[in-house]
């Protein structure tokens, strides 16, 4: 069971030098794609505005100087824009920030300037193959690499040793569970993940309706030896015992 969970779950456990494990929630291709779309939109708007402003000031500067500046703007916008933001304090481009994402090293530490360079320069390869006749990347390589790796890393991430994570995970809504009636010792010795499941049942019970609680508790009939509302209160009692009385 543990194995399947770690294979399905996007939580990535990372051991720090302090000897403790923290869990990072890795971001998948969909939010990252949306962040990329937002970034491209922002870059496009900036380029259009810069081009218009420079074209107007070209009357004073001379048209050639203006078009030279426009080409420099293109260069910096296409290669250095994401590097600038990701190497900065927030570790995220505006698009990633708006999606609540952040780029970190696989160790969980903030990325260095060099890592930002590598992962963003390789974006041209991740963008392959291009849509025929249009300069629009399909991100096919990047998507394939994301789906093939455990931590949703595109090629640039692999070469830079980085991952994209959710910066702040929204806390689960906490609704106080019904107060425990009594404490009951489980009849069998529970494995750690079973203890976790029982405790999680109690934590989340406040979010469910009466019927749903009974439905879920019925799956644990072997443990409770009862069904329906009686089974629910059995589990609650066990959770109480496990957390408070042990």
């Amino acid at each position: 069971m543990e194995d399947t969970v770690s294979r399905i779950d996007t939580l990535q456990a990372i051991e720090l030098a302090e000897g403790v494990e923290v869990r990072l929630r890795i971001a998948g291709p969909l939010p990252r794609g949306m962040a990329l779309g937002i970034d491209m939109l922002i870059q496009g708007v900036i380029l259009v505005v810069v081009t218009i402003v420079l074209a107007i000031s070209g009357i004073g500067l001379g048209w050639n100087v203006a078009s030279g500046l426009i080409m420099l703007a293109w260069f910096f916008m296409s290669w250095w824009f994401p590097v600038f933001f990701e190497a900065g304090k927030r570790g995220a481009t505006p698009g990633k920030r708006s999606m609540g994402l952040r780029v970190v090293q696989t160790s969980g530490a903030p990325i260095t300037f060099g890592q930002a360079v590598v992962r963003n320069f390789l974006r041209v390869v991740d963008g392959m193959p291009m849509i025929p006749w249009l300069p629009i990347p399909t991100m096919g390589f990047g998507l394939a690499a994301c789906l093939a790796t455990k931590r949703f890393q595109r090629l640039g991430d692999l070469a830079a040793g980085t991952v994209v994570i959710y910066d702040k995970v929204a806390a689960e809504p906490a609704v106080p569970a019904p107060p425990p009636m009594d404490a009951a010792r489980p009849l069998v010795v529970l494995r750690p993940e079973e203890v976790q499941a029982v405790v999680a049942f109690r934590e989340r019970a406040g979010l469910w309706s009466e019927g749903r609680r009974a439905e879920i508790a019925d799956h644990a009939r072997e443990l409770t030896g009862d069904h329906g509302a009686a089974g629910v209160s059995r589990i609650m009692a066990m959770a109480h015992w496990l957390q408070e009385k042990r």
Partner: protein
Amino acid sequence: MSPGSFEERRGSEWVELERLISSVEKGKPEEGVDELPRRFREACSDLALARHRMYSGHLIERLNSLVIRGYKLLYRSRRSGWEAVMRFVVAGFPQAVRKEWRLFWLCSALFWLPFFALLASAWWDIDWIRASLGPQEMAAMEQMYGGQEEQLSHLRSEHGSNFMMFGFYIRNNVGIDFQIFAGGIAACLGTIFFLVYNGIHIGAAAGYVHYACNPQSFWTFVAGHSSFELLGMVVAGMAGMRLGLGILKPGRLPRGRAIAEAGKSALPLLYGAGTMTALAAVVEGFWSAQPIPAEVKYGAGATLWVLHIVYFLWMGRGRRAA
């Protein structure tokens, strides 16, 4: 100990840690910030305890995010200043190139062999050149290099056109360098393709000039920036090959780690290549098309080639650099 009493005993410490972390995150450290590392380590052990004792998910989640935030602050890398940049220029870059001397010769061959093959076909079989340039490009070559040397500087006589070409060369040529590097991730194939392609293309252009245009006007134009640009391209190729070899030849590391290590060791080469090609754009924009006697241009070009060789062979050696 029950989760409730655990939280009661340690809660105030976590609030204090969170206050310190938020203040540092905002860039305005508050009083007691020198306590942060100690409090961070305490929170780490609290998290380990909470997880081991299987306390509630909310408690673990709270400690988890607190530890992650603290970790990001304590372990951020320090930005290196101008000193490091200078060190890189006078020692780090030539050292990095010398260290990868095998890749240097490999990438040089990938570029120069097609170059000379196509250049030579100006005398042997012009069809190769025709096929690789195409009619439009041949017309453009004739327009640029067809007449006397003055023709080029005449094209640039309009106000600001030097700057426009500088912008163009930055965007185009430095962009090509970055693509050569990025192509390396495809098991070196992209890098090899771009190097050979550029060798063919530039060689064909040089050959066509000898066939149909005024060679003097071409060679005086390229003499000045050739050393920066062509060596820069070769170095970008080395960076791409280094990256690709991480996949092809991971050695004793697992392949994922090997790629990341290769990316790290390719970086100095990439920085150097980008800088060299940017310098080439400066020369190409503001010097190469100026109406200057041919001897001066050839002299400057040859001097720069010699300086490059000296730079790569001898800079950053000796005890002071180490």
